[in-house]
């Protein structure tokens, strides 16, 4: 496989998870979670710590990363988000509060990195996770395992939201909080679970991303713009849009840089940021409903020759 595609698939899967989590948190609580950055970095460090301190391949620590990320999300909900939601805080305020939380988490991550460096004689500030990986079908296992992992997780999430009672209740609360409340659904619990899943997805995204790019304490900080780009491309009103948006942004970045550098030379590499930015700008200015605004069902029906089937 082409090297750019091999890495690109991993990176795109990571962004899909992260952007999906961002979107979920936004549609549930109107909060743009800045702390997604550090939650992602934490996910990376959980997997890294597992590999260097205990051993084994990275993938066995991904579930743990999810749980830790979820825990960070829950803390954010109880400590920050819920009090502010109860006060009817504006979106900007909600976002700023997560920024503060992100800075605190960042400082803790940096201190942890210091600790690992000094007390454990490790090098956690520039990590190449591929050394802990193994080979599968001639590629780094990550290229095959991570997209599959992402698909499995997202399928599980989908089933949760569609087949379980609480999952349906979550969708109901997100769509119409008042009606859901009138039905007796406890919105507090819904938001709690949203933060659990959102934080967990951020951590999974960070752990996955570390298999594609160098792992640093600012891994999340550096990619937060791309995560936002993916969420915005998705349209910010549908979880599935966010997931797809993240994936498209990630793949477009790698594919774009590869093909553009073929055309114009390697200097293009420095401007890889322009691609997600462009996608984001196009979405905001031309297409505000994003990918999720595209009438997929109608398109599909049109393609397979069915007539519009709203009312029988």
């Amino acid at each position: 496989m082409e090297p750019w595609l091999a890495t690109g698939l991993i990176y795109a899967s990571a962004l899909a998870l992260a952007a999906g989590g961002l979107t979920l948190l936004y549609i549930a609580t109107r909060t743009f979670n800045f702390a997604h950055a550090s939650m992602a970095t934490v996910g990376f460090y959980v997997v890294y710590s597992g590999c260097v301190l205990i051993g084994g391949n990275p993938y066995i620590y991904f579930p743990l990363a999810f749980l830790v990320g979820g825990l960070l999300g829950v803390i954010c909900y109880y400590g920050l988000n819920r009090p502010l939601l109860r006060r009817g805080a504006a979106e900007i305020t909600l976002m700023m509060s997560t920024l503060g939380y992100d800075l605190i988490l960042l400082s803790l991550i940096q201190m942890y990195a210091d600790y690992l460096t000094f007390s454990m004689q490790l090098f956690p500030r520039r990590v190449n996770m591929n050394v802990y990986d193994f080979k599968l079908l001639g590629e780094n296992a990550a290229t095959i395992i991570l997209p599959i992992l992402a698909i499995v997780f997202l399928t599980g999430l989908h089933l949760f939201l569609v087949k379980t009672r609480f999952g349906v209740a979550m969708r109901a609360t997100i769509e119409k909080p008042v009606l859901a409340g009138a039905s007796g659904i406890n919105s507090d619990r819904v938001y709690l679970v949203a933060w659990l899943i959102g934080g967990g997805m951020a951590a999974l995204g960070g752990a996955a991303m570390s298999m594609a790019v160098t792992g640093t304490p600012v891994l999340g900080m550096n990619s937060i713009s791309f995560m936002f780009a993916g969420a915005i491309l998705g349209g910010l009103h549908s979880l599935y849009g966010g997931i797809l948006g993240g994936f498209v942004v990630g793949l477009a970045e790698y594919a774009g840089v590869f093909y553009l550098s073929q055309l114009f030379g390697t200097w293009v590499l420095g401007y890889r940021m322009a691609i997600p930015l462009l996608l984001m700008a196009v979405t905001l200015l031309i297409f505000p409903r994003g990918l999720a605004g595209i009438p997929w069902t109608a398109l599909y029906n049109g393609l397979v020759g069915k007539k519009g089937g709203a009312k029988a």
Partner: protein
Amino acid sequence: MLKINNLNSGYGKLQVLYDLSIEIPEKEITVVVGPNGAGKTTLLCSIMGITNVFSGEVLFNGDSLKNLPTYLLARKGISYVPQMGNVFADLSVRDNLQMAGYLLPVAEARKKAQEMTEIFPVLKRFIDRKAATLSGGERRMLAIAMGLMKNPKLMLLDELSTDLAPIIAEKVILEVARLRDELGITILMVEQLAKRALEIGDKAYLLVSGGVKFAGEARDLLSEPELCSLYLGIKKPAAAQIVPLTEGSR
């Protein structure tokens, strides 16, 4: 069962209800009628804690409902069927009914959902379709079914008859009367079909510009020719007729 004392409420800084006092007796149907903009929906929203209550109290069996989150009201046994936003558009009809029965044990919820599809066969046909694809009238029937599913102590109904064909509207009104008679549910209903509602109702309040213009027995309001023609569009308030319960049922 429900007592509202000196309620002043509205949306944001806009005041809609002025010093409103209303009493809803148990196991009876209390009808609230009045012209558009009178504050009827605001009244229901104030009870459910959805709008801005400036002052006054709302007491449910003596307990204050102030500042309680909506889901706790549902758990106290208050069921609310709004006029707008009363179904989950993105969910299937089946899921909508499942959500309506959220507080019931799963088996009972399933049974009640089954009953609902018997009462409203159109729901059975569309059971797996997203609620957003239903027509206006079908959606309203789903909303009513959702409201009926809960086994509530008190039901707040906001203009149930909107969007319904007259035959179905009649069916629905009779169903509401049945809820009071056979199940002993207390009902507070806001209605535009004033005449029919007052015929099956026990108590009535006429709301105009955020204040009460009439409070008393429903049949008494029907025999007030001035009020009826001025605010309710009832030209010839006939003597109220007690409607037989088993007429034209499901």
